[in-house]
């Protein structure tokens, strides 16, 4: 009660610091005017603002910002592309191409979102397609009906005997 108030208070994170803590989600950042050459792999999120050549690999989120360039095959868990990529892009889940995105290479993903203005030059492959040609369906039906008529005819012959 009569003690002097201590100048050093116990550490308590405030709102501002909590907001800063969200910045920790970004693990690797390639800044503008920085050039990375070689096999660029990370276990966390990657943000590219500069130039990367070689290969890029992450199991989490890849963000390619406007003005960034990647001359490499890209392998990521999720990706948001606003810059340019020259190479094949393989994304496990969701790939988002914004208005300024340019991709020159094959794209492989589960969910694809393309904004108007985005440019793609390459083959797009997505998992889960279960459609078949109409022609092949008709042929299948014909085969089934033929099989039925044949079995009917065989049954009648047996009955006659």
């Amino acid at each position, binding site marked *: 009660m009569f003690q002097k108030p201590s100048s050093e208070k116990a550490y308590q994170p405030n709102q501002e610091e909590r907001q800063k803590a969200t910045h*920790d989600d970004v693990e690797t950042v390639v800044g503008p005017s920085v050039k990375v*050459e070689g096999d660029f792999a990370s276990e966390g999120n990657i943000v590219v603002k500069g130039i990367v050549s070689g290969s890029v690999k992450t199991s989490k989120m890849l963000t390619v910002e406007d003005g960034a360039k990647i001359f490499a095959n890209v392998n990521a868990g999720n990706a948001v592309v606003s810059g340019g990529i020259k190479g094949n892009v393989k994304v496990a889940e969701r790939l988002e191409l914004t208005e300024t995105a340019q991709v020159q290479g094959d794209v492989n993903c589960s969910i694809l979102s393309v904004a108007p203005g985005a440019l793609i030059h390459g083959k797009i492959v997505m998992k889960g397609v279960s459609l078949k040609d109409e022609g092949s369906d008709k042929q299948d039906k014909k085969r089934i009906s033929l099989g039925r008529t044949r079995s009917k005819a065989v049954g009648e012959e047996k009955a006659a005997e």
Partner: protein
Amino acid sequence: MYVYLYDNFLRQKKYDSTVKSMETRLTDFGIAGKIIRLQNFTDSKAIIEDEIKKGVSGIIIVGNDATFGHVLSRAATCDVLFGFLPLGSDNQIAEVLGIPVGVDACDVLSKRRKVKLDVGWFNNRYFVSKLHIPPSKITIEYDEKFKVSTKDKVELVVCNLQPFEWKGKGSKIHVIHPQDGKLEAFLRPVSGRGIFKEKYEDPSIFPFQEMLVSSRKPFVVEADGKQSKETKIKIKLARKRIQMVVGRERKF
């Protein structure tokens, strides 16, 4: 028994009351011990080794980030339990370790929650808080996998325990808290020169385990407040080197 290493700045009168109440709290917990005051030229390693021979069970550093780095960069090889009682300003490491600044730190110390910490290593020297290379023309190779180059000079900061701060656009201050298990490298290329100081671009961040920094010309390396000039340095992570008492709210 614990030995307490007090930094020289704690002699200032403004710290008297806090130091006294800290000592009272430590006596209440039954963990009070011998006090050694560090001077500018005190070799902390020699003191700690001497105390280990006498059978000390723990070395407690009392001071701020500079004291912490100064003691542990030399004493990282000593096999003893370390503790930290943060006091005064410049205490960012305490926040990472989950130790409150001031008298409440004694409570954390009394609980003896022990964790083995990773330490940075370069050219046969350890660093605990951070390593800093002022803007120079350097090339960097990470984990023998990829090379990073810039057009102009670049500033490099490698953080082990001390968080890295930089001012972004509109004087917004960004803070990145390093994680244990990896070292974080922050690269800030120089984009131009202002009237008083150099202008920097947004930093690049790379977590790594091994890094090779080289240059044609010698560059300045500052680790835990100690400067040297090198042409090639290899920075590594020495895993589980220091046994330390930490708080429950630590950030790793």
